[in-house]
C-alpha cells in the first residue's frame, strides 16, 4: 500500500471488491485511516462549511441512520422481550428453535470450512501465479454477490429437483439433496463463496512472492512454505474473510428458503424459522430467534472493527 494511499489505491481496492457488493465493507486499509492522520497545515476555515450548514448535515445523517438502522435493531430486542425474560428463554428452548439453531450451526460449519480451504487456494492461485483467464476467474468468484439469492437457490433446484438435470438419477439412488441438509449447504456455499477469496486476494497480491521464493530457495517444501510463510502473513485477512463468510452463512435466507422445503424441525434454519413464526403471529418466538441473529451481526461488526485495526497495523511494514 503506497503511503499517499491516494485515489489510486482506493480505486484499485474498490475494483478489487468491485461487484463484491457485500465486501465493499472490506477495504480495511483505507477506511478512516487518513481522516486524522493527514497533516492540515493550511487554514481550516477554507475547507469547511458555515456552522448552520454543518448542523443540518450532521442532523440529517444522524436522523436517517437512527430511523433506518438503529430503530429496526431496537425493535427486534423490544419485541423479543415484550412478554418478559421468561417467555424469551422458553421460546428459545422450544425443540423447533433448538433444531433450527443446530442446523444453522451445522450448515455454517460445513460451508465455512469448505470455503476456507478453497478460498485460500483460489486466492493463492490468483495472486501468486500468472495464467490466462485470470480476470474471468475473478469475475466468476464475484458472481454470487451480484446474483439474487433466490436465483442462487433456483439453480440448485434446476440441478437436483425432481424435474432437474440430476433429479431422476438422484431419485433412483435414493439420495436426498434438495429439501435436505446437502442442498441447504450447497446453496449456502454458493452465496458465501467470494468472502474468503476476496478478503485474501488484495492482501496476498500486495505481499508478492519474494518471501515464498526465499523460503523455497532455502530448501523449504511447498507445504512448509505455505504453513510457515504464507499463512502467518495472511492470518488476519483470513480471519476477516471467515468472519464475514460465517455471518452470511448463518443469516442467509433467500437461497436457503428456495432449497429447504421448510420441513418443520428438520430443514428450517434460524432465518427460515423467523419467517415461519412471524407468519404465524408468534411474534415473541420469531423475534427471540431474530434477536440471536441480530446479536451475531453485532458481534461480527465488533470483531470486524478489531480485525480492521489489526490489518491496518499489519500493513505498516509494507507501507514504506
Amino acid at each position, binding site marked *: 500500500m503506497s503511503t499517499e494511499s491516494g485515489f489510486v489505491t482506493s480505486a484499485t481496492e474498490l475494483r478489487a471488491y468491485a461487484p463484491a457488493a457485500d465486501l465493499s465493507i472490506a477495504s480495511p486499509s483505507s477506511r478512516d485511516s487518513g481522516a486524522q492522520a493527514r497533516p492540515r497545515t493550511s487554514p481550516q476555515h*477554507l*475547507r469547511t462549511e458555515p456552522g448552520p450548514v454543518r448542523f443540518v448535515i450532521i442532523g440529517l445523517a444522524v436522523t436517517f441512520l437512527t430511523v433506518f438502522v438503529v430503530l429496526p435493531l431496537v425493535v427486534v430486542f423490544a419485541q423479543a422481550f415484550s412478554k418478559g425474560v421468561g417467555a424469551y428463554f422458553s421460546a428459545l428452548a422450544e425443540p423447533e428453535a433448538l433444531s433450527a439453531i443446530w442446523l444453522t450451526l451445522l450448515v455454517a460449519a460445513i460451508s465455512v470450512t469448505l470455503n476456507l480451504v478453497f478460498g485460500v487456494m483460489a486466492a493463492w492461485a490468483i495472486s501468486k501465479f500468472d495464467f490466462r483467464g485470470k480476470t474471468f476467474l475473478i469475475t466468476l468468484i464475484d458472481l454470487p454477490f451480484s446474483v*439474487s439469492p433466490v436465483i442462487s437457490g433456483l439453480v440448485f433446484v434446476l440441478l437436483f429437483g425432481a424435474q432437474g438435470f440430476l433429479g431422476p438419477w438422484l431419485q433412483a439412488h435414493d439420495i436426498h439433496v434438495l429439501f435436505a441438509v446437502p442442498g441447504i449447504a450447497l446453496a449456502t456455499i454458493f452465496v458465501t463463496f467470494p468472502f474468503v477469496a476476496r478478503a485474501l486476494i488484495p492482501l496476498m497480491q500486495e505481499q508478492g512472492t519474494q518471501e515464498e521464493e526465499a523460503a523455497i530457495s532455502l530448501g523449504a517444501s511447498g507445504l512448509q512454505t505455505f504453513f510457515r510463510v504464507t499463512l502467518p502473513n495472511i492470518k488476519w485477512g483470513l480471519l476477516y474473510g471467515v468472519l464475514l463468510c460465517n455471518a452470511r452463512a448463518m443469516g442467509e435466507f433467500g437461497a436457503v428458503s*428456495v432449497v429447504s422445503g421448510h420441513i418443520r424441525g428438520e430443514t428450517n434454519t434460524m432465518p427460515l424459522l423467523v419467517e415461519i413464526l412471524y407468519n404465524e403471529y408468534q411474534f415473541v418466538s420469531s423475534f427471540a430467534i431474530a434477536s440471536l441473529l441480530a446479536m451475531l451481526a453485532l458481534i461480527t461488526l465488533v470483531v470486524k472493527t478489531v480485525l480492521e485495526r489489526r490489518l491496518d497495523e499489519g500493513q505498516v511494514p509494507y507501507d514504506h
Partner: protein
Amino acid sequence: MGLTLTWLSVIILIPLAALFLKTFELSFDQFWGIVTSRRTLNALKISFGLSFAAALVNLVMGTIIVWALVRYRFPGRRLFDAIVDIPFALPTAVAGVALTQLFAQKGWLGAPLAELGIKVAFTPVGIFIAMVFIGIPFVVRTVQPVLIDLDPEIEEAAASLGANRWHTVFRVILPGLVPALLTGFALAFARAVGEYGSVIFIAGNLPNVSEIAPLLIVIRLSEFRYADATAIAVIMLLASFLIIFAVNRLQRWAQNRTPVH
C-alpha cells in the same frame, strides 16, 4: 490450481449453466410469452423501478452521511460510522420482520405515519423503505475512502481563488467523487433488485401491485412452473451482468482520470 477450477465449476459454473440450459428448453415464443405476461412485467417493473428510486435516495443520503462522517467531528461519530454496516451484517429475514413491525399500522413509526394518512407496510412504499435500508452502506462505503483521500490542496486553491464554499463543493469536490458515487449507486441498485428477505415481509405481495420479481420466481417454483421461474431468473441475471459490467467500466474510468501522485 486444477482443484480450484474444479471446485469453482462444481459450485458456480455448472449451476449457472443449468439455468441457461433450462432456458434453452423453451422456444423463443414461450420465453417471450412468459417474460411479457402482465404479472411478470409488473413484477419486473416494481423491482427495477423501486430499486432505482431507492438507490437515488441512497445516493443523496449516502453523500450526506459520508460528508458528515468524514468532514465533521460530532459526538458518537465513530458509533454511527460502525452502524452504517448493520444492513450488511443483519440477516435479511431479521431486517424484514423488524422493518415490518416498525412500519406496521401499530408500529412505532407506522402509527404516527398512519395518522398522517400514509400507509407504509404492505404497500409499494414498504418495498421502497426496505430497499433503502439494504442499500445504505453501498454509497457510504464506496465514497468514504475517496473523500478521505481527496487532496485538500484542490479545494484550498479553489477557495483562495475566490470561489465560495458552495462553488467549491459543487464544482470542485463533487465532480471528483462522481465515479465513486455512481459505483455506489449501481451497487445499491443491483442489491435492491435482487433483494428478497428484507422486502417480502413488508411488501404485502399483491400480484401486479406489490410483488417483486424474486418473489414471483419463488411462487412459480412452488407451483412447479420451472420454465416461468427460469425465464424470469434469466432476465434478472442478464440485468445484473449489465450492472457488473457498468461498475467495472466505472472503476476503469475512475482509475484513468486519476492524476498520478
